[in-house]
């Protein structure tokens, strides 16, 4: 298929081989207190962090992350300022960014990939860049050793999933439900179904995100998947209660997914 795994994928594969389930909290970059929240999440057992780069028109995000993005933008956050702040973080786990494609397109593919690399970012998730449109970015990202995480959706027919997995670097982001980011009262049945379909065809780590809303749902998801991404549930705590609450929550999820079945 391709070159050796990148830093994040290798780290995930190693941890998975050691029997660990993977936990990736999402934190909106530029939101007041975001760096403290990120360090708290790492200290509480995150395996990597997804840093959101806020965009004016976040079509894959529900109300919580929309609000966080807007607050960060209102506070003056830009891709450049967030990457500058990311450089100062000095944490041990791999850092990914989640951003919308126009941020990349506007800066230029190669230039942006280099900006990520020089800020110490190892991976990128671009939710509005599907497989058919991803070529130019992926090429630039590969050249700068940025792992492009591909999303797989519950609506994908069987023939599509192997192509998504073949292009995925870092991990495959298994979208948990039909809908945008946000907390739900129960884990959708689509979450484990899709994760199972992906696990059957790839050895790239499979993480479930979108609609994994609490420790119990994370535990349910990792019965099938290699790990979870936790977005709105983390960001809501940062918005409402600050960095310490993020650390406590990540520790709670960590304990839940580590517990013996």
């Amino acid at each position, binding site marked *: 298929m391709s070159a050796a795994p990148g830093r994040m994928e290798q780290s995930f594969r190693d941890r998975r081989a050691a029997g660990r389930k993977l936990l990736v909290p999402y934190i909106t970059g530029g939101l007041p207190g975001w760096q403290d929240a990120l360090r708290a999440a790492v200290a509480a057992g995150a395996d990597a962090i997804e840093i959101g780069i806020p*965009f*004016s*028109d*976040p*079509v*894959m995000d*529900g109300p919580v992350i*929309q609000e966080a993005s*807007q607050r960060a*933008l209102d506070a003056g956050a*830009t*891709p*450049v300022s967030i990457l500058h702040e990311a450089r100062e973080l000095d944490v041990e786990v791999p850092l990914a960014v989640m951003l919308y*494609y*126009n*941020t990349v*397109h*506007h*800066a230029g593919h190669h230039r942006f990939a280099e900006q990520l690399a020089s800020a110490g970012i190892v991976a990128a998730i671009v*939710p*509005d*860049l*599907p*497989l*058919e*449109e991803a070529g130019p970015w992926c090429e630039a990202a590969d050249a700068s050793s940025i792992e492009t995480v*591909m*999303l*797989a*959706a*519950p*609506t*994908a*027919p069987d023939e*599509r999933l192997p192509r*998504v997995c073949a292009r995925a670097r870092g991990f495959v982001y298994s*979208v948990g*439900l*039909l*809908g*945008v980011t946000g907390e739900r009262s129960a884990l959708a049945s689509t979450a484990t179904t899709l994760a199972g379909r992906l696990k059957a065809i790839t050895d790239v780590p499979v993480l479930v995100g979108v609609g994994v809303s609490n420790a119990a749902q994370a535990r349910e998801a990792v019965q099938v998947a290699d790990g979870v991404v936790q977005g709105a549930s983390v960001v809501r705590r940062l918005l409402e209660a600050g960095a310490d609450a993020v650390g406590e929550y990540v520790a709670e999820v960590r304990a839940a997914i580590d517990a013996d079945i």
Partner: protein
Amino acid sequence: MTLMAEPSATGRFGEFGGRFVPETLVPACQELEAAFRDAWADPVFRQEYRDILRDYAGRPSILTECHNLGRRLGIRLVMKREDLNHTGSHKINNVLGQALLAKRMGKTRLVAETGAGQHGVASATAAALMGLECKVYMGAVDVARQELNVFRMRLMGSEVEAVQSGSRTLKDAVNEAMRDWVATVGNTHYCLGSVMGPHPYPWMVREFHRVIGDEAREQMSTSFGGDPDVVVACVGGGSNAMGIFSGFVDTGARLVGVEPAGGAAVGRGVPGVVHGMRSYLMQDEYGQVQEAHSISAGLDYPGVGPEHSYLASIGRAEYPAVTDAEVIDAFQLLSRTEGIIPALEPAHALAWIVREAPTMQGATVLMNLSGRGDKDVAQMMEILR
């Protein structure tokens, strides 16, 4: 390449267009593309569409020569009267096509975005007619300035949600409609209101509006001795302009799409990607999409349909801008001289004609009067008070 034909396999018009949507929506866009391609090649569907345009929307729309205003401006001024369609604008052409297609695809629910409310009203109309559930997203700012249209939609049984995010205008209504569609894609068709969005929408919506240009070409030939020298339409997303341009793109006519000064995507934007497409887009130095500001809710959009970007990039069409003040004057001018109250959107097209008439003396100018002004009367009453 033949202009205004089918886009490339990836939905490109030159470098513009494409399908930049979340993975969840890729199969839906593919399914829609296949369904539209199939339907558009099916004589039965085409006949059904023609019949409903004639018997329900009231097509063909007439051409009206504006003798009084034309004399005053020193031009021959002809209007394509899309304002006389059922629901009061050109929007009904696209909506009836998409609603028929949605039914053919077995969808039971429509979602739509709306700016001024014309597309929302048209969607609510088609949904009522065809027994589909319908939810319309409308920016909270627009809900306030277009409350009559909100009432119309609700009267016809549609749900209207005021969108509170971002700039609370058309672009945010599009975001919210897309979020709805991501969650409901199984039973829902996104009835997008302009020649924008991911492939196949820019192509499909243009084809549904092609009837405007086809009729006008024939009517010009029959009643006005041939093709016009200039074809003018307003451009927000650009559907009414695409409709009338499609009839004349292969003639020598000058094609003019008029943008609002506060939402001049072609005039002031650079290529960007939002709402599923690569096109000219008003954005800041980091690629954040900027808010459009115009007197007309229907043109308050920072992007533009990708085929307009293409026509601009190859120089086949031009995209000047007019100010709100020029639009207010044009709105009153047409009302006084011709007894026709235009919507604020086509008043942009007229404002450009008034400004440029001295350079077009003796020319035949065809303008798409894309909608009637009833919806804007309350707002204009405040402005002119």
